[in-house]
Structure formats: C-alpha cells, structure tokens
C-alpha cells in the first residue's frame, strides 16, 4: 500500500464497560471500590485494555501539569524514547519532579512499557511566549505524540492522572496500586473489548488532553468526518481510535471555544430535526445554528461516554441511545456506569437510579448536579 494511503483511516473497533464515581462534596477516596465495580463488568472487556482517570490525586503538585508518559518497544527503544522525550520536555518546561510511576510487580501484565511521570510548568520562549499555558501544553503534547517515536504522553492535566494498559481493568488498577496509593474525588474507568488484538498500552482508555479525559463505549461511524474536521483545526489523530476524536472535540469546544457542556452535548449528540423544528423560535434558532456550524462534529453511531474534568463529570449517550448508561446517586456520591449492577455492588442502596435520555448530558459538579441545562444556557445567553 502506498505510504499516502497507509495513513488513511484505520479505525479500531471496540466495545467496552465504562464507570465513573464522584463525590460532590469533594471527598477523596481510593480506587478500591472503582476497581471492584469494574471487576463486576469483567465480561464486557476482553483483557486487551483497561484504564482509570483519577482527579485530586496530586494535591502537593496541584500547581503543576502532571505528565504521564509511556516509552514502548524493547529496552533500547524505551531508553532512546525517554532520552528524546526528556530532552524535549527540558527544553520547553521547568520540570520540578519526575519519577517512575509506581507499580506492583505482583500483578502480571503483558509487556508493560516504561512508565514515567513529570510535574512541570511551561517555560515558553520565542513565538510561543504569548500562548496561554493550556494551549502551549496542548501543542507540546501533540508534538511529542506525533513526532517522537515510542514516546507517548497519556495524561497531561493538573492534579489528576490517567493510568492505563493492556489487561483487564482490575489488573491494571492493581498494577498501578490505585487502591492503595491514590485518593481522588472523581474516578472514571474503562474496560476494553477491541476487536483487533493489537495490544498496545497507549490504545487503552481514558484518552485525554490536559485535565479532560474521556472513556467511551461505542463505535463512531462518523469517525472519518469528525477526524478531518479536527485535523483541519490542528489536532493530530495519531491513535486511530474514535475515542481520541471525542477527546479532541471536547477540548476544541470547551477549552478553545469556551462553550458550556450543555451546548457541547447538543453538538456531539444533537436532537433530531423533527424535534428541533417543533421547538420555540429561540431554541430552534440556536440548535439549527449549532447543527449548521458544527455538523462535522456530530458523533454518529452508538456511544456512551463519560467525560471528566477537574471538578466535573459528564455522562452522554448518542442521540438514539444505542449504548447503555445508568446514572445513580447516593448521598454525595454520584455514579455513571454501563451497568446498574456494578453500582449496586459498591453501593447497595441508592437514592436514585435512572437512564438518561439519548443526547441529554448528565452533568455532576462539585457544587451540584443537574441534567439538560440547555434552558438555563439560553436564558444566560439572552
């Protein structure tokens, strides 16, 4: 195949389990219960990928971007990748601390890469000097991931981190000792069932940029369309998974364009025209404009996702709800899961349990929780 065509879409296809737990009061807890919940959905994965995102885990370094890197290949390739990546990081950041990411050798996982974390702050020069920090970091992350062989930054937010690899999620959780070493107020997790067997640690979820992470169950049939749009705007889709495009779409809309999640949800999973045409003028005009402008970001095909950011967790399904998503609350705790059973396992009694409607985001924030805040946004915009 010609080189040009090799670069064409080769999307991975997978089905999955997703789970999220958050304390609205900001209480921090270990990953122990999250791992148990994921273990109960063992059959939804096939051991080829598991991962977690945890928020609030690095309070001592909360001012600094926490980069998690993996260096893959044989020992020599790993060393070379680490050397190249570090050279790049030192040139562009002040690194205040770095260490190997702790892991347990008792847990058997397949071909673990070298995993390292860096706490750093931007050190801008030249034409980058005027860039906002976040934009600067995003550009550097994209550079490392697309230009440095065998080095991959899989977590880049502040006071949060992703942990992922090849294995069942409960194995990955124990490998990184998430039940012992970390306490976070928000956890999301993912168990993967890829239909190809290429076992690459970087291919596991969550995917993220800065502090936005996405875990995703589904296949996005609009991948080709979403991808060219995002690539046109400077993102590089190097991982060939549809989750990556979701993560970039959220970054584009929420960080770069400063749109609220309720609007973003209407872009990713808009109501049907039939519904829109029946709305009152204001709403109809807004939604029509959204669909007109952002049509290439409509995520078509079955999906359920949990998007997490500092202080907030969002659940969303595709507009005709082809993948399961259950939401539950208990006291200050807020859960989103592929299956109700996994929530019941760790919290047998619940205050409320429901399945959100297709395309309606469920948003939980540290200071409260609400559903479908679109009305509110329109009022705000007026």
């Amino acid at each position: 195949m010609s080189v040009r065509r090799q670069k064409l879409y080769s999307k991975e296809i997978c089905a999955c389990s997703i789970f999220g737990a958050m304390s609205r009061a900001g209480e921090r807890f270990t990953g122990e219960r999250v791992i148990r919940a994921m273990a109960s959905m063992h059959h939804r994965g096939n051991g080829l990928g598991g991962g977690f995102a945890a928020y609030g885990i690095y309070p001592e370094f909360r001012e600094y971007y926490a980069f998690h890197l993996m260096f893959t290949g044989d020992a020599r390739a790993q060393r070379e990748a680490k050397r190249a990546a570090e050279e790049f990081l030192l040139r562009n950041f002040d690194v205040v601390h770095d260490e190997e990411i702790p892991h347990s050798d008792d847990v058997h996982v397949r071909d673990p890469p070298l995993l390292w974390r860096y706490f750093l702050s931007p050190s801008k020069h030249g034409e980058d000097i005027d860039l906002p920090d976040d934009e600067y970091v995003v550009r550097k992350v994209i550079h490392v991931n697309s230009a440095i062989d065998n080095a991959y930054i899989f977590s880049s937010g502040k006071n949060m981190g992703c942990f992922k690899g090849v294995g069942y999620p409960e194995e990955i959780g124990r490998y990184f000792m998430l039940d012992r070493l970390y306490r976070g107020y928000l956890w999301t997790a993912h168990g993967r069932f890829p239909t190809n067997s290429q076992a690459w640690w970087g291919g596991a979820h969550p995917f993220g940029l800065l502090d936005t992470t996405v875990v995703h169950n589904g296949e996005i049939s609009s991948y080709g369309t979403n991808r060219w749009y995002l690539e046109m705007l400077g993102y590089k889709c190097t991982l060939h998974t549809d989750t990556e495009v979701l993560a970039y779409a959220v970054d584009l809309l929420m960080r770069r364009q400063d749109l609220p999640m309720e609007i973003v949800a209407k872009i990713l999973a808009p109501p049907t025209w039939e519904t829109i045409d029946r709305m009152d003028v204001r709403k109809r005009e807004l939604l029509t404009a959204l669909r007109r402008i952002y049509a290439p970001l409509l995520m078509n095909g079955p999906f359920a996702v949990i998007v997490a950011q500092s202080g907030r967790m969002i659940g969303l399904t595709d507009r005709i709800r082809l993948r399961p998503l259950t939401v539950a609350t208990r006291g200050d705790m807020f859960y989103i899961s592929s299956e109700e059973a996994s929530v019941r396992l760790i919290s047998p009694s619940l205050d409320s349990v429901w399945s959100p409607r297709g395309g309606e985001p469920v948003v939980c924030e540290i200071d409260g929780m609400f559903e479908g805040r679109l009305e509110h946004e329109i009022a705000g915009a007026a």
Partner: protein
Amino acid sequence: MRSLVLPEFTISRSEECDRCRACEHQCPFGAHTYDVSKDKMISDSYRCAGCQRCAVFCPKGAIEIRPAPSFYRPNASWSRERIEDIKRQAESGGVLLTGCGSDKPFRIYWDHMLLNASQVTNPSIDPLREPMELRTFLGSKPDRLSLRSDTDTATDPFLMVETPVLFSAMSYGAISYNAFQALAIAASRSGTFFNTGEGGMPSEMKSQFKKHAIVQVASGRFGIDAEYLNCAAAVEIKIGQGAKPGIGGHLPGEKVSQHVAATRMIPEGTDAISPAPHHDIYSIEDLEMLISAIKEVTNYEKPVIVKVAAVHNISAIASGIVRAGADILAIDGVRGGTGAAPKVIRDNVGIPIELAISSVDRRLRDEGIRERCSIIAGGGIRCSADVVKAIALGADAVYIGTAALIAMGCTLCQRCHTGRCSWGICTQDPGLMRRLNVDDASRRLVNLLSAWSHEIKEMLGGMGINAIESLRGNRDQLRGIGLHEWELDVLGIKGAGE
C-alpha cells in the same frame, strides 16, 4: 451535398401497424411519412435520431428502433464514430455540435467504489423506524458559534436543503418553458433548489419560486438586473461547465421566442451568445469584485455560488475561489450535460467529477478553509449511490441535470442542440413543447427525488449513520475496486479488503 453517412438506426414496423399515422405526427425529424397512393407508412431511417418517441407512442406497439446493423469494416483505430465524424465534417465544413454529456467510456469511478455497512460491532439503523436525516446546509460556516450573540448567527447566508440533491442550471431557452416550470415546482415541493441557468427568470414565476431558485450570472449576463438577483435564494456565477470548459454558449435565434427574448432581455430572434470568459473576470481578483458586487446588490442575504468545470488544476482554482469569497463552490465534471456543445470539447476536455471532489476537498482541508464554503458536485450523477459516494468523497450536495431530464422523458438522443426535442424538453417549438405536461413532469421529478432520498437513507442506515452530514468526507465508508494505486491515492480511499 448528399450525406455519405450510414443511418445510425433501423426503423422496423410490424404487421400490427394500422396506418394511424401517430408516428408521423410524433417524429419531429420527419422520419415517418404516409404514402397515400400505397396506403403505407414509409420510414426514412437516415432521419431517425433514436429518440424512441414513436416507439413509445405507437398505439399498436408496432415500431421498433434498433441500432443499425450496417457497419464499416471494423478497425480498431478507425471506429465508426471517427469515420462518421470525418464524413460529416467533410460535408459541413464546421464544428460538430452535440447535446448531452459525453458518452465516452472514461472510467466511471462511482462504479469502482463500494460502500460500507455495519456488522456486529455497530448496529445498522432502520430508516423506517428511526430518524434518518438528509437535511443539510450549504454556505460558508463560521469556525465557531459565539454564544453571546447567538441571535446574530444568521449572518452567513445559507441554503437549507431537505435532500442533498439540487437541480443544476438549465436555462429557459435551452429547455422549454414547461420543463423549466416542472423543475421549479419539483424543487419547491421537495425542499431543494432549481437553477435558472443563464436564461433569466420569467417574470411571472419570480414571486412564486424565488425561495427555491438559484439564479445564474453567466458571461452573457442575460436577464440580469437587481430584481432578478433578488428573486432567488442564491446567486450562481457560472465560470464554466463540465461539457464545455473554456467555451461560451450559443442559443440560436430560432430558439429565441418572444417570451425567451423578454426573459433574457434581448431582441426576439437574435442569437444569444455567451462569450467564453466573463469579460470582466480575467483573474481571481476580478472574481472577488464580482462576488462582492453581487453580495452588495443582494444585501449580503444570499450565498454566492461559483460554478466551474473540473479541469486539471481544479484544487488550486477551488482554493482561489474560496478565498475570493464564494460561499459555495459548484464543480461540474467531464460527463456533465449540455444543451449544445462542440463535440470535440465535450469529449476531450476536463476531468471526472469523482477525482475533482476528492482533490478539492483535500486541498481545502489542508489549507484549513474547507468550512468556508460548501461543495456541490455535478456532472455524471446517475443514481442515489453516486450521491452517497460523492458526499463520502467530500461533497456537501450534488447537482443533477441529465438525471432530471431523463425523469421527464429524455432518452439521451443527443439532439438537444437541434431544438427539435421530441419529448418537449429541449425545444421552444410550441407544438413539441406542449408534449411535456407540467404536472406530470413535476410529479416524476418529485418522485425521483423521493425515491433517491429513501435509498440514501437505506444506505446511511446500513452504515450506522443517521445524518447525512456525518457522511461528508467520511472516506472510511468507501473502498475502491479495480483501481490503480494512483487512483486510490487521488480518491483518498483504500482498496477493497485493505
């Protein structure tokens, strides 16, 4: 001079013929006559255009028109067409004219691309049970929505179509009043648009159809004034046409009836000549000025389309057009139809639309300006699968011309330039024109669009996609078959099984 060209068709008449003379009446080329003395129908196959009108209308079904079995000695280099063209030119001394799009066997890429469907990992969607959306918007789109001023989002003018198929430019003059009206009615009933071509818009149609009309500004500038530009949903500047890139137009005086003349704002019976270029556009900045002038006259309320023929460096041209401020780019491929064109141009100039869509879409994406304009692709769209493939290659919507004419009755006899269309489509002869019933023709067009829309929904549903916009540029859904590497590269698709 006696013609030395063999007849192209044979007319055979069976015993069933009861000499009703219907064929004589139907044939606009005078191929059938009645011999009173012998009480017999006589056929002159030399005159037959193969339009099949008489065969369809013979009440006894007694007539059969077939390709003539006569032949010149077969010769790989000197095909029948080459031989006959030479004979005709030796007889006339002129440029050979023809109608319709090129009939040459250039590779039809549509037939070398296969679509995808969902299996297991992704459910297909049943369009009869689930919403399946074909609505799309054509025009320039901003990079982002500014929430604080969401009431002003209507600043960029756009066209909204309920199905991604529009009728391409066919002027009143080239086609009959009835055909023109049928297109207008069908467009308004189907939530799409028709295009006036360069023949102006008959004044009595202006108010009724302005919401569904695209008016054209071509090099002849016929029928153009501020009122004309404003009685439309969009204005199209025609630079070129797939059937005759680089060539102007010529509507012979015989077709310029009183009404055509009034609509075009020219004297009755004079030839309407469109120059090859616009004489106020000799470069891209001139185009920019014309676009601005049109926007100014239409109060920035209408998107401006620029239509060009697909030629070799189409992607660079497209980029220039977008940068000059066009909201929509219409590209017409080498197989695009025409009412009249020099045969040598029609059959030798331009490139296939499939390759043009792909390379233009890629170029605009590479330059980051793809959303500053929409792409309407035309010239060779024959069925709903072609529409789906065009969109997957990067078009926003398609133009159909020939397909619409066929729906109204056209049999692609390629005699449009004679003005004697037996189906009442491409003629200004009042008798012939009357053959096309506006109601019936518009119903056929509406049916065609509805049939295609249903088929497009089926194909989308199969791919697990429920909005046409999620197909745009989604080349992932296409695979090539029987194509060379370079062709796959230009199309930006993988081969089947890759």
